């Protein structure tokens, strides 16, 4: 089993999937940042060493089986002193070699750690709060009026280090975007910090890596690494309140949203809906997915989600709000208009 083969297996498996965009989008071995590249490099180095060791051990076993014995003693357990000494020397040297290899690996690991965790100048701080089962994102800024909240989809400028403050609202979660950086736990009552930098534009998937209850499986996030200009445009847009609906159906939808159950948990900037327990939906239509990456954000999927969230994501805190199909359509129209 060589490094190359694993790589090809990975590529094969990912490329065979239906969606083009997802090729290696949650893979530790498809690094798109210096950090992840560093980690992948270290991984391949370790793998190579380990593979060699394993091959040698198996080779030894095969030789044990194939070997023609020099002499066979009559009694069980007879020792051959000259062999004993030779074997002692060999085992001793192998042990020494093992120790040396392990020392080298330890040092490499140590320096890699330092490399990765070295504090860097950052341009942006995002507080990520793990919730059952979604990600609350708060873009922070010295100037409070430049700060804003969103959910589940993290936009970052390419090539710029971003500080991610990791917190949790309920149970332990873990932030992990393998293409960019290794994971870090989000522990209630503690704050962990990661510095994230994407070196190539792209869409990267991340997923909660610490078991967090019923819907641990459907707690994913997307990182959009964008050229700085695009990011800046996105950021500025996030500061704006939601678009006011024009079409009558959308206005109906807005009223359902603002005066109904939706507003008790969700916020849409610029309206009276300012619930904080669910994801902020001010620019919902810009999001690629629904329910922390569970569904693609299409009107059909949104309708399906609203109709019966528990069928899609059993145990989610999103309730099944009874609604006529027409109302649901209006609501979908309103939400899909929140560009």
């Amino acid at each position, binding site marked *: 089993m060589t490094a190359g083969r694993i790589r090809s297996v990975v590529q094969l498996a990912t490329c065979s999937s239906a969606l083009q965009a997802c090729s290696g989008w949650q893979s530790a071995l498809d690094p798109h940042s210096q950090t992840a590249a560093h980690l992948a490099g270290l991984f391949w180095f370790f793998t190579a060493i380990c593979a060699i060791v394993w091959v040698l051990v198996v080779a030894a076993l095969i030789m044990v089986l194939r070997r023609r014995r020099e002499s066979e*003693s009559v009694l069980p357990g007879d020792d051959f002193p000259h062999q004993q000494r030779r074997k002692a020397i060999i085992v001793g040297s192998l*042990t020494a070699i093992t120790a040396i290899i392990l*020392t080298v690996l330890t040092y490499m690991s140590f320096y*890699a750690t330092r490399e990765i965790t070295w504090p860097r100048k950052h341009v942006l701080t995002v507080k990520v709060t793990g919730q059952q089962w979604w990600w609350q994102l708060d873009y922070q800024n010295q100037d409070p009026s430049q700060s804003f909240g969103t959910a589940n989809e993290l936009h970052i400028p390419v090539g710029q280090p971003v500080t991610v403050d990791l917190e949790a609202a309920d149970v332990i979660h873990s932030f992990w975007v393998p293409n960019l950086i290794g994971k870090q736990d989000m522990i209630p009552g503690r704050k962990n910090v990661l510095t994230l930098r994407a070196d190539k534009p792209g869409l990267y998937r991340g997923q909660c890596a*610490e078991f967090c209850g019923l819907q641990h*499986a459907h707690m994913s996030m997307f990182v959009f690494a964008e050229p700085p200009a695009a990011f800046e445009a996105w950021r500025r847009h996030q500061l704006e309140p939601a678009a006011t609906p024009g079409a009558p159906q959308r206005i109906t939808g807005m009223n359902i949203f603002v005066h109904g159950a939706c507003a008790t948990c969700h916020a849409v900037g610029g309206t009276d809906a300012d619930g904080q327990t669910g994801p902020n939906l001010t620019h919902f239509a810009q999001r690629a997915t629904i329910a922390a990456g*569970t569904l693609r954000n299409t009107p059909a999927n949104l309708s399906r989600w609203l109709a019966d969230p528990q069928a899609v994501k059993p*145990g989610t805190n999103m309730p099944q709000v009874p609604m006529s199909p027409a109302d649901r359509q209006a609501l979908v129209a309103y939400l899909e208009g929140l560009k």
Partner: protein
Amino acid sequence: MTKCASEIRDTALDDGALSARLAHIWGTPKTFWGFMTTVDHKEIGRRYIVTALFFLLLGGLAAVVMRLQLGSPDNKLVGPDLYNQLFTMHGSTMMFLFAVPIMETIAVYLVPLMIGTRNVAFPRLNAFSYWVYLFGGLMLWAAFFVNTGPDAGWFSYVPLAGPQYGIGKRSDFWAQMITYTELSGLAVAVEIIVTVFKMRAPGMTLDRIPLFVWAALVTAFMILFAMPAVMVSSTMLILDRLVGTHFFNWAEGGDSLLWQHLFWFFGHPEVYFIFIPATGIVSAIIPAFTRRRMFGYVALVLSLIGTGFLAFGLWVHHMFVTGLPRLGESFFTASSMAVAIPSGIQIFCWIATLWDGKLRLRTPLLFVFGFIVNFVIGGLSGVMVASVPIDTQVHDTYFVVAHFHYVLIGGAVFPLLGGIYYWFPKFYGRMLNERLGRWNFWLAMIGFNLAFFPMHILGLMGMPRRVYTYPAEMGWGGLNLLSTVGASIFVLSFLVLVLNIIRSLRSGEIAGDNPWDAGTLEWAATSPPEPQNFSRIPVVTDREPLWQNPETLPVIGGMHADRREILVSTLVEATPEVLESSPQATIWPFIAAMVTSVTLLASIFTPWAIVWGALPVGIALTGWFWPGGEKEDES
């Protein structure tokens, strides 16, 4: 010691009469009462093993359902609620109800035989430990079948398992199950330590102890130091949940990471509770099938002890991504790497022994080969996850799942299966079928690797652990299906084992005392061993006594033949010290275990149970120690 007129010594009897007499004194009547009251280590060890294998079956079935669920993306076979219970039950069962108990109780069965004594020290405690273990395991599974299976993982991280998010009584059952199993585990550890230290046959100096016994001894010491940590933490968890203490409440001065520290302080050594006895099994099998003494006995013993020590300095590598100080984490990287050295030494010594041994490629040895091949993969991936930076990518992914299954199945279950093939003749007097054994081995080997190797890749592809499903677009479906197929084959291999065992019990070839022509003392006893193990206690002058004295073993005489008596010897040189009585069969351990169990079970619902339960427990213990006027009370 008063001398009675009726006193009979073994010197006065010929072999046949002595054997019959002792068999009667030590024997367990084949009645229900006999079953309930026995304190014979072989009886208890055997039922311990059978019970552990039963829990293996249950845990394995849970795994099968999980594999079926994960076999295809977006599968709806089981929902998240059941899935979470399943993987928690799987992990908890395998770790607490199968792996640790079976390793301990193979020792309970074999250690007295291997060191030439008639029972373990504290046989009633031994019986007690079995019943407590049984009740604890049954309680957990009974809870599971009434939808109260724990669902916060076998590690029960707070706050998810805590009072706020661990809803209902599910985590309480988990936490109390820990109390049961650790109670029994500690009891066994104490027995093993005292047995090995004080009850060895004359002449079995420390450097003549079989490696398996060394492994059992090191494990017992580790259990003694590690298990209190998890008992304390699970008790804290219960207190948090039931009484509202704040050990893990970060908002009132507690800390959720405290749980992780305490749990892994136990949890990491626990892997070695499983692995070290397995190496002992390997070290027992290899000499028998290579016709060579184990190369590097002293190095192997020191490796075991070294592993035992180092195992306590590794726990933080389960917590590399919790945000602990990086420098401290690097220390744990170094210690985690260092633990590979003793493992390496063991492997080198095994290979060195095999190197010019006269190989008999029977099933046990096949499993040893399988063990080395698989375990080395697990060990090496362990070196990878020991590295903090690599761990940040693979932690809590299927890579780790693959890693520890390679360690635990490759490193412990393969030797265990080998051990079953090796010692089954001793236990039951019949050989297991070699042909089926080979089928068993190859199916296990193929199935296991097929099931678990792809998980390495899945982990690197980003598949986290403990997910009940995954979207098709992740591209994990193919490898998962492969893994499920592999798991099925692996299950098949166990069916072959079961078939083999059933067949052998009925019509297996009669084994004889020493079918493998092995060198250690257990093969000097009959197959199956008589209740007293040895009618006359052998005198040991070599590490492989049966190889040194193939025809007859020297024995000592002068022991009473009218009571249960054992020989107590000195710690280092094993020179005879004193004759000590060994307790008779009694129902009290069962009663004590039952009231203890009821007390613990009730304490899930009210803390007052501890207060009220203290009374019957006290009564049971009084009955237990009440002198009964037997001859055993004299000496």
